[in-house]
């Protein structure tokens, strides 16, 4: 059983991971997909304008990546602070 200090430390570490990932989340969707989209459209990758692609596909791939990283990182943190369930 983890001590209250360990649990608090785990929570703080969790908040750090969370906030970094949410910044990325907001950047790819609201940033690249909406507000910067017109500027990014100047860059072309094959038949895609980058801003258009971020809004319709790119951001979704990043979202999947964000959750995948979160699952992996939290599993490590759970063990590190002794709060893992298994």
């Amino acid at each position: 059983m983890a001590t209250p200090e360990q649990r608090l430390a785990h929570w703080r570490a969790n908040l750090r991971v969370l906030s970094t990932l949410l910044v990325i989340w907001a950047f790819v969707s609201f940033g690249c997909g909406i507000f910067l989209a017109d500027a990014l459209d100047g860059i072309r990758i094959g038949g895609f304008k980058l801003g258009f692609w971020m809004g319709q596909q790119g951001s979704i791939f990043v979202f999947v990546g964000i959750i995948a990283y979160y699952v992996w990182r939290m599993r490590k943190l759970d063990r590190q602070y002794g709060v893992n369930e298994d």
Partner: protein
Amino acid sequence: MSAQVWTYIIVALSFTLYLYIAYRSRAGSTKEFYISGGGVKPIHNGMATAADWMSAASFMGMAGIISFQGRDGGVYLMGWTGGYVLLALLLAPYLRKFGKFTVPDFVGDRYYSQTARMVAVLCAIVVSFTYVAGQMRGVGIVFSRFLEVEITTGVIIGTGVVFIYAVLGGMKGITYTQVAQYCVLIFAYMVPAIFISIMLTGNPVPQLGLGSEVKEGGAYMLDLLDTLSTDLGFHAYTHGVRPVWDVAAITCALMVGTAGLPHVIVRFYTVPSVSGARMSAFWALLFIAILYTTAPAVAAFARANLLQTVTNATYSEVPAWFSQWEETGLLSFEDKNGDGRIQYYNDANQDADFQAMAAAKGWQGNELTIDRDIIVLANPEIAQLPNWVIGLVAAGCLAAALSTAAGLLLVISTAFAHDLVKRCLKPDISEKAELMYARVAAGGAVVVAAYFGIHPPDYVAAVVAFAFGLAAASFFPAILMGIFQKKMNREGAVSGMIVGIVFTAAYIIYFKFVTPEHNNPDHWLFGISPEGIGTIGMFLNFIVSQIVMRFTAPPPQEVQDIVENIRTP
């Protein structure tokens, strides 16, 4: 074999499968009925969540909207997937740790208040019924077009199947039928997409086909679409026309609304552990992303195919699918200039050169009205794919509609039997009686949903904004603060929810029902449309909660201990 025979065979097979699964997974206790016993594997829960979430609107509506709006349709793509990031990072693991059965459970216990519980129950029921009506309309369309039965018969068959597995199996039955339904719907979505991608671009991956060169002419797919669109007076496909702030507000409302929808949240109670909840959020988004990254490709292919097929085509020589869809009323042609040809263009375009060009060609107004719901359904026919693909698409659309309907009906039944009867009216009720109430409520909700399917209210499309706006302005902030702000108290949360809901509902009602003629950017608050107003409602909720909290008593120690406890696995 004809498309209709194929459709009968495939739909009948899929329905038999759902019923068989339902029979194998009957619920014996309230825990099984509400949360499937809490022992669902994360990957299964991920699939079930994906099917639960992807409704008739995702399956047939979304690509249609993107097809007509081009870039602006991206709000649905980002909005309906980005919400899973919020769900996975901010809500799911902690709600799973909290346990219990429902969203009102959390709101009521965390804010030690029956008022809060009641507000949550009411929101859950309103949001879910709004949504169910749309699903049943989808079921009706599929039956009437592909099986050529009366919409009423179609809806009764569809609801009959849901009735059996939702009432019998509860969450347990729903979970495993949803796993099967995900497989059916994703297969049905991908097969025509891959076929069409190969036909148009030679690339078997639709996601990449969208950015490839078309076989004929060698131009890039998207550039070709831009040209085809602007030639007919529409805005270029890859350009947006909505103001960016409105796009951002709608995207935000959809994301936050997604994370706050009770039928999605409740799925995370069914896994055995906190890390399981995180993992199943990952699987869910992965499974959803397969369809959501394909949708923009389907939309673009369908648009290009459609424009090339109908533009200036002779009406007497149109393909068979055209006449069949005309019978459903979802496609209609009116020969305004009497030349026997179809002129489909944007007659609202005010550009002088364009108007001169249209006049010179003898065009006297747009002659073709296309309901965007048929884009996905008619796609295989427009692209002349084999008949079995058409049957498959019909079965996929039914799977998407039924799986979502079942999830929503369960929320309604649980809100009634558990949150209302057990937690408020008759706390000493036995488990057996509660299960009885749950089954009866599920049955009653199915009947109401069937009624909506047969007599779809005209305002269905208008009230979809309600579901997301309400979820964004009520549940999301309340749950978020309940987890991340230990000092948030009853008074703060309740007043925040009420202000958020009243503001959002009033704004939507004002523009959609009271003065629809004012529903344009000139009259909107900060230029934000009713679809995006949930974002402002959410901020209001946060602000009011913070202010009220400062002037009222902090939550009792045991509640603060609960918060402490749910923060770590």
